[in-house]
């Protein structure tokens, strides 16, 4: 319907973005009726997302003409931004920002580096940046889920954790159960993506490859490759994140320092 009203590509794109954002805002209004207030957070995220992706689009056009090594800096910047974004999911969590950046850098960064070295990801910026960003974005989501879950679990079980400490357990042992459940739950989206691949959804990368004339079989296999890399990057990020978070919530004298944000004890 929109293509009848908007003949120019830019106009059509903005109209499509507007309609898609409207769908998101309808959800926000429905949530508001149930006393769940996501208005400002969603509005900011939508505007920010649009501005960022358009800016990156322009940047990519510029970078595509540059040398391949510039992608290293772009990926590093993405990792830092991803770390800072997912750290916001753990208010009151000591060191959440550094934990997130290190976890995503080690988790997604190492998978990108190894896969590029092995030739699974091609080195031209046009390949490395889109595929790398997918790995980083998914690692960011996993890390955000892990931070949030770990914080909630520990806060909900302060009594159990301190009882274990009071009985002579080391900090790692006192939260081991919550670290395990955090790791498992943070990987649910990545596992579900792999499980439903091709049945529930045909990912954008595969669709893009098909549209650009790649062989359907290779497109399908490469999509599997990307999702497997996403799983590896997310899993490694979550694994590192849960270990680092564990260290952050205890003092050097093995005291639990994580408290609810409002708690002044």
């Amino acid at each position, binding site marked *: 319907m929109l293509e009848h009203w908007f003949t120019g590509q830019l106009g059509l794109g903005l109209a499509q973005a507007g309609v898609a954002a409207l769908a998101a805002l309808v959800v926000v209004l429905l949530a508001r009726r149930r006393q769940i207030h996501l208005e400002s957070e969603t509005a900011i995220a939508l505007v920010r997302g649009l501005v960022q992706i358009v800016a990156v689009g322009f940047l990519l056009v510029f970078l595509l003409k540059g040398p391949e090594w510039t992608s290293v800096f772009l990926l590093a910047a993405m990792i830092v931004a991803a770390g800072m974004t997912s750290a916001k999911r753990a208010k009151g969590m000591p060191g959440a920002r550094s934990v997130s950046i290190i976890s995503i850098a080690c988790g997604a960064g190492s998978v990108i580096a190894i896969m590029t070295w092995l030739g699974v990801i091609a080195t031209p910026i046009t390949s490395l940046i889109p595929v790398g960003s997918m790995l980083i974005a998914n690692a960011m989501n996993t890390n955000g889920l892990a931070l949030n879950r770990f914080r909630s679990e520990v806060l909900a079980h302060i009594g159990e954790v301190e*009882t274990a400490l009071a*009985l002579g*357990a080391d900090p790692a042992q006192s939260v081991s159960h919550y670290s395990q459940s955090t790791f498992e739950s943070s990987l649910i989206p990545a596992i579900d993506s792999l499980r439903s691949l091709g049945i529930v959804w045909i990912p954008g990368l595969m669709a893009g490859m098909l549209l650009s004339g790649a062989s359907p079989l290779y497109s399908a296999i490469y999509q599997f490759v990307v999702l497997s890399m996403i799983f590896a990057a997310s899993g490694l990020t979550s694994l590192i994140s849960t270990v680092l978070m564990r260290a952050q919530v205890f003092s050097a004298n093995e005291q639990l320092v994580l408290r609810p944000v409002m708690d002044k004890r």
Partner: protein
Amino acid sequence: MTESSTPAAPSATGPILRAEHLGRRIGDVVLVEDVSFELPRAEILAIVGPSGSGKSSLLRLLNRLDEPTQGTVYLQGVDYRQLAPRELRRKIGMVTQRAFLFPGTVADNVRFGPRQRGVSLPQDQINKLLTDVGLAGYVDRDISNLSGGEAQRVSVARALANDPVVLLLDEPTSALDESAKLVVESMILRVVRDSKLTCVIVTHDTQQATRFAERALVLDHGHVTKIGSVQEVLRA
């Protein structure tokens, strides 16, 4: 981890537990201020005071679950900052208001403390501990099938399994119903006296303090307002 790598040997004489100018502040908020007392072997000290007076905060300083911002504690003559926190907490057991049992069986819970230092508690010792707290035959019972009173008995047995030299009791019966309260209280009192354990009990119930302790320490807004024999302090 600790502030000295060469901890002194425990003293055979003198008080088992000595708090010296102990305090904790968070910013401008005083939780506990300048608390000093000595506790000889096998003595029971009651810490009493209104809600928010700092009773539980003081207890948490005694096993270093929280870090003092002032003063220190000597356990058997050794500054507790010289002990590894895990070793200190093994020696200073704690029973809290709620049992906070770990998933599994009663025996799993009793084994928990010794297992942390690689010790496998023999079955006869588990049986003895459970008999002492009135739970003979409960070894393989899943903790989800326990009443509040039974769960608190397990938490006492679990704390005693570490063979502590001091036992901290933080309102151990306040979360129980009236019928269980007196039964659990008399069980704890019997176990503590039989094993000649040095003990600190936090309670808001002055009657309970009288039944338990020889001496009482009254806290108000984190400050000691009275300390002395339980009769003098609580009947004044």
